[in-house]
């Protein structure tokens, strides 16, 4: 069947293609998603498995063969609209599904690179996404391709035609909400967070029936807000997040607390929990909100059936540096004194790497993965940071004379020791591959500021490289010891995801445009290919017709080009783009 499909030309009508491929183009089931990590012929979840380990056992392409890898096709996203391409491709039955910047979706013949269909969301006038017009990918379920839009909607498209099957407004874009993360499907529900932390929003994680878009539950990520569950079409109160308002927030600031879960989440079937990270608290000036400000800058374990918070772990209590806690929490098991530990790991914006017990959220260990951390001197036995109070930016209200306050140098910068770009975990090397950046920031109070014609007190920021030779560092980290096994330094900041394989390889793209493959044990570069624009997407691998493929999106953008100073010097010559590159070994290669 697959062979028959292979020679299809685009000139054949889609229904003929479907007829020929019958069994091959089956719907995506819960089982397909649950097994995604071990089935190598498809990629049907963000993270290549709901755990988000981004590990494939495939080994045809390996440290000795990878040098022969070459592109088989490239697909242009077209149009005038380029900017950052942060998508992770999905593969099912020889079809690749990707998202592009400006809320576009494409279905592509994975063998030829021919376009099958394209969907362009109509974006309303006046949306104001914070950090570029990116999207990180689709979810697949049944015969649907589901993604979130910049105007905060979930859209489900028919996988064969690209036509809209259902569309749901998740939040009001006019209030500052948007969606850029890839949703995930767990037990038939599509689960998504929202972006928009700076506008006084309240973060929420929501589950919808993936087939029809009906809301199943919603869980606010800020202490004090009521969660809901829908039963037989009825909205039922389902407990206040954190029990009651006002425990870790002064006054009524919990009402506009931020904590947006903007990067989506992971899921582990072993413990049957969703793991979502949450953004920084609002307002940005930490002096206005003494307290820990739950559940900002935290990891939340959520019951996938009810939306109840089962446990939480806060990485940056009382955040004053914009250290979002959204980073992916990746479940993994390891053996300690003959005992299997059900752990999960996360590399935080704040520069620390945490290993948690994923059953109950207990802190197992934590250590810095950033070379320089100024805001905390370490973690205590519960994983709580030991603050360096001099490292906290001042209160702008203290500048009564209208002069700039003192400048505080904070490392990591607010773009984080690690930003959104997902790390990977190899079951072979038992190492995490963490795409990180070594940068710091100057922060000062800015009394001469205005907002919408009103006087305002802002903060000025400049991001600076810590080292002349590099900002980006890919680090291979042993979660059991905290030891860094190897590092790869990159001149410009890293902003793309990692893939690791059974071929003892780590794949990664850089803003300079290269897709790189490295020896997973040593970091030695084994392959390098210039894709023509910066890579900020996440590579994937799968096998098809007995061959292993690798794909990655190329297209420079994301939040980094929005900031200047030292960083701008390093990246201003990088050109925009929008291309999917797909690679394999030559057919006759032995």
């Amino acid at each position, binding site marked *: 069947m697959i062979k028959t499909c292979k020679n299809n030309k685009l000139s054949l009508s889609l229904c003929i293609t479907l007829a020929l491929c019958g069994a091959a183009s089956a719907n995506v089931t819960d089982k397909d998603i649950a097994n995604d990590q071990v089935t190598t012929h498809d990629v049907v979840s963000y993270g290549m498995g709901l755990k988000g380990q981004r590990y494939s056992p495939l080994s045809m392409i390996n440290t000795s063969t990878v040098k022969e890898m070459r592109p088989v096709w490239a697909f242009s996203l077209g149009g005038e609209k380029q900017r950052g391409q942060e998508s992770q491709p999905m593969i099912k039955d020889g079809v690749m599904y990707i998202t592009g910047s400006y809320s576009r979706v494409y279905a592509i013949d994975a063998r030829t690179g021919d376009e099958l269909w394209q969907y362009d969301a109509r974006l309303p006038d006046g949306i104001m996404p914070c950090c570029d017009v990116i999207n990180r990918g689709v979810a697949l379920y049944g015969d649907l391709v589901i993604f979130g839009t910049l105007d905060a909607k979930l859209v489900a498209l028919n996988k064969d035609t690209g036509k809209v099957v259902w569309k749901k407004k998740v939040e009001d874009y006019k209030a500052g909400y948007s969606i850029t993360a890839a949703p995930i499907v767990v037990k038939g529900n599509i689960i998504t967070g929202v972006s928009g932390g700076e506008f006084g929003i309240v973060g929420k994680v929501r589950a919808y029936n993936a087939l029809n878009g009906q809301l199943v539950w919603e869980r606010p990520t800020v202490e004090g807000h009521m969660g809901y569950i829908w039963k037989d079409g009825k909205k039922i109160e389902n407990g206040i997040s954190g029990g009651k308002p006002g425990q870790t927030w002064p006054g009524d600031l919990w009402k506009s607390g931020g904590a947006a879960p903007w990067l989506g989440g992971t899921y582990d079937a072993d413990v049957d929990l969703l793991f979502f990270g949450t953004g920084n608290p609002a307002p940005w000036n930490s002096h206005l909100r003494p307290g820990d400000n739950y559940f900002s800058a935290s990891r939340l374990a959520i019951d996938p059936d009810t939306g109840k918070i089962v446990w939480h772990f806060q990485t940056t209590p009382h955040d004053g540096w914009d250290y979002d806690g959204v980073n992916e929490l990746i479940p993994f098991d390891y053996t300690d004194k003959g005992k299997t530990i059900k752990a999960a790991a996360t590399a935080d914006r704040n520069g620390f790497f945490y290993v948690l017990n994923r059953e109950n959220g207990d802190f197992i260990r934590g250590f810095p993965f950033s070379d320089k951390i100024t805001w905390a001197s370490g973690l205590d036995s519960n994983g709580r940071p030991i603050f360096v109070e001099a490292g906290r930016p001042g209160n702008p209200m203290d500048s009564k004379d209208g002069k700039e306050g003192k400048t505080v140098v904070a490392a990591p910068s607010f773009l984080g020791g690690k930003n959104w770009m997902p790390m990977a975990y190899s079951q072979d090397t038992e190492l995490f591959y963490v795409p990180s950046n070594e940068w710091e920031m100057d922060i000062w109070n800015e009394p001469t500021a205005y907002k919408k014609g009103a006087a305002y*007190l802002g903060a000025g920021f*400049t991001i600076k490289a810590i080292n002349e030779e590099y900002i980006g560092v890919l680090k291979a980290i042993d979660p059991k010891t905290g030891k860094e096994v190897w590092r790869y330094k990159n001149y410009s900041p890293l902003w793309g995801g990692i893939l690791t394989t059974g071929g003892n390889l780590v794949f990664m793209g850089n803003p300079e445009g290269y897709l790189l493959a490295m020896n997973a044990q040593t970091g030695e570069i084994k392959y390098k290919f210039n894709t023509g624009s910066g890579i900020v997407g996440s590579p994937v691998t799968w096998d098809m017709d007995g061959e292993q493929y690798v794909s990655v999106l190329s297209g420079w953008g994301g939040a980094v080009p929005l900031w*200047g100073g030292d960083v701008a010097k390093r990246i201003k010559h990088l050109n925009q783009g929008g291309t999917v590159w797909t690679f394999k070994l030559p057919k006759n290669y032995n």
Partner: protein
Amino acid sequence: MKRINRSWLRYGLICSLAFSSTGFARSYDDIIDSKEITVAIYRDFAPFSYQIDGLPQGIDVDVAQHIAQQLNVELKLRWMTADENVEDDLRNNLWKGHFLKRSVADLMLRVPYDKAYSQMRDDIGELVHEQVHMFAPYHTESWQIIYNAKQIETVSTIAVFQYHNIGVEVDSIPQFYLTSAFGGRMRESAKHFSSIPLALDAMSNGEVDAAMGLRSQISHFQHSLDSKQYPLAENAFPMMGRQQWDIGMAVKTQHRQLGYAVGDIVEAMIKQGHMEKIFAHYHTLYQVPDLYLPEKSHP
């Protein structure tokens, strides 16, 4: 997420060359020739610029209309979605355009007229606002408290808000002030709303005893309330850096000829009392900027 960053203006300058040439800010001659001017105003921002049943209303709309009339051109409005600060709005709407909508206006209203601001330099000493020319202050803005006289006898000092709650807009100076001045003694009293109209609704519903916001907004909305029950307070705002500031306009820096023409029109509007009439029409307190006061001489 991002907030204020001055240095990205420099990077933006490089990018702007790549944008299409349609919808660029134009010279005075081009505006007169084409018989139309595009003026940028904020959306949903009563009493300055808003829509009722699709019809543009407000002080800034009327001011823009008058300028177009005097130039003898047709007025086109560009409704701005406010970004995080005025630097962003100037970039998105006047000199570069937003990446979702690659066009700009010829003239932008509600831009601060403040020498320290227009001459502000970034961390490496470059002018932050070198792309724009700010001019024509048309009113002086300030902060104002309104209160429910049935709940609070009088607001002689800000100290009463240790005992009475008060509505403020999220992420505004009144919020910063009430939640952090005097060691945070008024922090528990500050109740947060996403806009001033919502804070005033809460005051009329009895949820809060007072509200603090822009004087223009507060005085405008007071008109629809019983002004006996909801008087404007006359308190001072100790410990607050900037008590009042001027609001003017901006054009792209190379189109100063347009700026001079519009500046003359605005000055005449103020001197002939037309500006005050527009404010009065919207029941908004008006204060003439110092620049036009006769006792002061200006170069």
